[in-house]
């Protein structure tokens, strides 16, 4: 039986999601100590601890618990938060738009700048432009993001008063305000990935520019910039798409810190709250969501491959 390549990739993603679900389940059991006691706190009575144990089903055998976990997941039930008065699913869904908006705006800043800098650095290889881009890339790995975030707030919010220093405005209350609230945190987040993307684009570009078909394009009389963009850049799209997928994962991960600094009520803040309050069901739910998001991202990257490279399409 031959499956459509995309369908085949989709089928391959299923076991990965199952493994993510098992790992999330095990989170509760791999942590040191008795989870029920940890959740109840150090000064809880034995009865209180027992109550929590029964409430969370921790008194049943592990295999039974795992089966029950999957049965609940199949029903879309991620459990109930221990500290928030709502289900994990509704808590997550409430905050999802914030993190999704933040990551999307950050990505929308990262990709054009990262790609443009990478192409420029490759074209001007060895000049100060190239060195400048490489410096920016270095910044991404050597300066902590919260530090840049604080400096940025001092400059743009406190001193200049151009942008709000914290808070979130949903998109349905005005796209302008939504963007004003996000532009600063998203830029700080993007700053760290632009250099990474630029570096990867540059090296992919340098590989391509050495290929014979680039010489063919020049021999046809195609201008230098057109050679670079039409013949060169299109051939770097596979590595660039791969890196962009990784970068989106990093942006989502990085949002945990940025949401703290800018007081954005997103998933990142939710998970930090959950960890501090020892709200295991909440943390589990968010982990599972992150895991599934990354699997879906990889799937999207695969789909994009087939769009940018005819050789993959006919594989």
């Amino acid at each position, binding site marked *: 039986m031959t499956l459509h390549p995309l369908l085949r990739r989709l089928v391959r993603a299923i076991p990965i999601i199952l493994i993510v679900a098992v790992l999330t389940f095990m989170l509760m059991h791999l942590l040191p100590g008795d989870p029920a006691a940890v959740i109840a706190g150090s000064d809880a009575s034995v009865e209180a601890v027992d109550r929590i144990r029964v409430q969370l089903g921790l008194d049943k055998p592990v295999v039974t618990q795992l089966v029950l976990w999957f049965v609940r997941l199949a029903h879309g039930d991620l459990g109930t938060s221990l500290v928030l008065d709502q289900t994990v699913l509704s808590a997550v869904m409430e905050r999802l738009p914030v993190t999704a908006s933040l990551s999307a705006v950050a990505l929308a800043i990262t990709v054009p700048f990262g790609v443009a800098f990478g192409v420029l650095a490759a074209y001007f290889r*060895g000049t100060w432009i190239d060195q400048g881009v490489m410096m920016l890339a270095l910044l991404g790995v050597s300066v902590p993001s919260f530090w840049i975030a604080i400096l940025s707030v001092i400059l743009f919010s406190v001193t200049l008063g151009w942008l709000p220093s914290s808070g979130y405005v949903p998109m349905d209350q005005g796209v302008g305000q939504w963007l004003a609230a996000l532009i600063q945190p998203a830029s700080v987040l993007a700053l760290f990935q632009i250099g990474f993307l630029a570096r990867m684009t540059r090296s992919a570009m340098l590989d391509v520019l050495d290929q*014979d*078909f680039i010489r*063919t*394009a020049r021999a046809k*009389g195609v201008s230098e910039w057109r050679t670079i963009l039409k013949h060169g850049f299109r051939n770097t799209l596979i590595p660039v798409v791969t890196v962009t997928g990784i970068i989106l994962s990093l942006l989502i991960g990085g949002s945990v810190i940025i949401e703290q600094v800018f007081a954005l009520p997103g998933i990142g803040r939710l998970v930090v709250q959950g960890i501090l309050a020892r709200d295991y069901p909440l943390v589990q739910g968010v982990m599972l969501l992150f895991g599934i998001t990354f699997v879906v991202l990889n799937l999207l990257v695969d789909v994009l491959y087939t769009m940018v490279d*005819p050789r993959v399409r006919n594989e």
Partner: protein
Amino acid sequence: MAGEMLLDVQNLTVQFRGDAGWTSAVENVSFQVGERECLGLVGESGSGKSVTALSILGLHARRTARIPSGVIAYRGQDILRLPTRALRKLRGGEIAMVFQDPMSTLNPVLTIADQITETLILHQSLSAAAARQQAQRLLDMVRIPDAARRLDEYPHRLSGGMRQRVVIAMAIACRPKLLIADEPTTALDVTIQAQILELLRDLQDELGMSVLLISHDLGVIAEFAHRVMVMYAGRTVETAPVRALFERPVHPYTIGLLAAAPRLELDTDRLPTIAGSIPDPASIVPGCRYSPRCDVALESCRNLPPAMGSAEPGHLARCPPRLAALGFAA
């Protein structure tokens, strides 16, 4: 010599940046290509054939290559002193090139139509639709069956021979006056090689092009070229009309090449070869570059750079002792 000179290269030197400064890969090379003429360029690997060819289109990287001296006159205009825009007009428009390896010379992410029409739109300002029609005619011209369907295919779907036909279609798209073919058949199967050569010859007649054909296959040169230039270690060692070269070779290197050329009727595994190998451009002897491998080298050959001398009209060789021995004034 056939007709007026289309291309006149004088004293071309090309240098590359190396660990020990600039070294010459091609030195003082001069040759001419007449209208409708085919000049064959032969020599072992590394003798500077491709470097010479790429210079004509100005395709060397500025960062690593330089041309300190020489003139490349195309219809009286020095290509080396042409502004970039004018040079781009020549490339693909008046002078086109076919490269050795059709597997890597086509862009893998663009369709055949994209790659052929690009030249047409660029040089002839055709509309996209007209260019596409023209591209289909070109595929017919290079004898690709089912051209209409091939237009929208990507290169990886075609065989090596078919790809080289596409490369040739791209090269002749704007009816260039000069076609440079750098080992156009070396990467192909033997049976395909003959077809591609036949195609090139037919196209040359049909379009009235001049051809600079680079090959290390003397059989190909014998069949195709009107005149031949033999290169060794970046220098010209002999130029002659094709018959004169094959029947009355002067330079010991040419004689060696002819003896080493595989002949089909010579059904043997032990083909003669020239002992030794071509020197690295960075470590070259002061005298004749071939002298370390030459059977008949004299003491003077090793120390004095040999001058080009004339054997017959149009037949020059860089070997004073041989020329003298054959009775030609050195």
